[in-house]
């Protein structure tokens, strides 16, 4: 499974970076940067990030 963020929907709210800082981060300009791949042990943080996004911009794709 990989993380996919819909850039059209994403508005850089940064809620995901709070839930799963290992994979999501806002850069100095406030733009979201993220890593697609994650390890199984972080899955609950990642799911938390998916749910926390108020714009439902984060998808997990296999």
């Amino acid at each position: 499974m990989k993380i996919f963020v819909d850039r059209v929907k994403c508005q850089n709210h940064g809620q995901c970076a709070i839930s799963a800082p290992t994979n999501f981060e806002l850069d100095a300009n406030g733009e979201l940067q993220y890593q697609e791949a994650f390890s199984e042990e972080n899955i609950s943080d990642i799911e938390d990030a998916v749910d926390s996004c108020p714009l439902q911009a984060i998808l997990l794709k296999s």
Partner: protein
Amino acid sequence: MPPLAGSRPRIGIVGSGIAGLRAAKAILKCKVDARIVLFGDEAHRTYNRPGLTKKRYPLSDALDMMIAEDVKVNGAENDALTWRLGTRVETADLRDRILHLSTGETFEYDGLVIASGVRPRTSVWGNGECGLHAHRTLRGLDDARYIHHRLQAGEKITIVGAGFVACELASLAKEYGCEVLMLEALRSGPFENILGERVSVALGRWLAQHDITFLTGDSARELLCDLQPSHPGPPSDGALFIEAIGSVPNVEWLHGNGLDLSDGVRVDEYMRVAPWANVFAAGDVACYPDPWTPGNLTRMEFWKNAIDTGDLAGRSLASSMGHGPVTSRIGYFPSMSTEVLGLRIQIAGNPRMSDAMEIVCGDLDQLDQGVLVAYLREGAMIGAAYMDKGARFNSAYIKLLKSLRER
């Protein structure tokens, strides 16, 4: 009253918002062999409510469809789940386990989830007209469609209130190029009850700097309408006048059951509505023991809160029917964000309960350069807020949150 031998138990969920849907999903995931019926008085399946105010849409004949498509939430496709949309639950009799529906039918349940959410507070009845304006509110997809249409036409908009919905709406209207007037008669600026006066005044300045006419106190009050519907004032000019002055929990349908409905529906840490072993509540309507300030109750109107409490209510209900233990209690840590005219505002913890604030970095006169604020109660940090155009202090903010959570 155990379910009749051999028949599948019936579960009713009142409210087809995200809390109701998540409860249904959790029950299905626990493999409860039951029939689940999800009642919703809106005509739409579950959608992403926060998405209603987050972006501007291009001019199009298909605007209504575009918004609906954009805020679509994947439903739970399962034969065990029936959607009863456009159907209101008028009253409930918890002792006899019966719901009375707007269609005149009744529904007998073995388990019940209350997820009926909140509705906007108004100063006149419904979307009524006072002497001067047609009052509207914003909560549902239909409201959002109406408002986007009118904003696209570039109309002038008056917004009463300065909370989240009011500020997001003002920001949206500005993006559409509309003239915006905001009236806040009670407080000195946006989010004052949460973030305190100093931050609130700074946010009010931010609005004014972005060409929003932001009036407070008497100058706002003067422009509020006369609330006597019979008052023979000048005829309503039909201008866009939106009230965003808070919300009211949808609990009237539960009257007569002896429940504590003073602030939503009171539940325990498993989302159970005492004294009933088979009734649970979740989402905006549920008032639960605050895991972060023991002894206090909390009721939160946030998306992630509805997801987590909906999930827990579903698992607790499954457990009450003998499907698995409920292990985790409410773990939701309050954290939300919004964007107002390019300024990202993030709030976490419980700043409302603070007795002091401290600027950790930045300057309230220069919000766009980033300001990080800690909120304290008896010397200990209980909340934080971060405002910025970029994300200069974001890692510092996340660090603050970590120490808040590990308290």
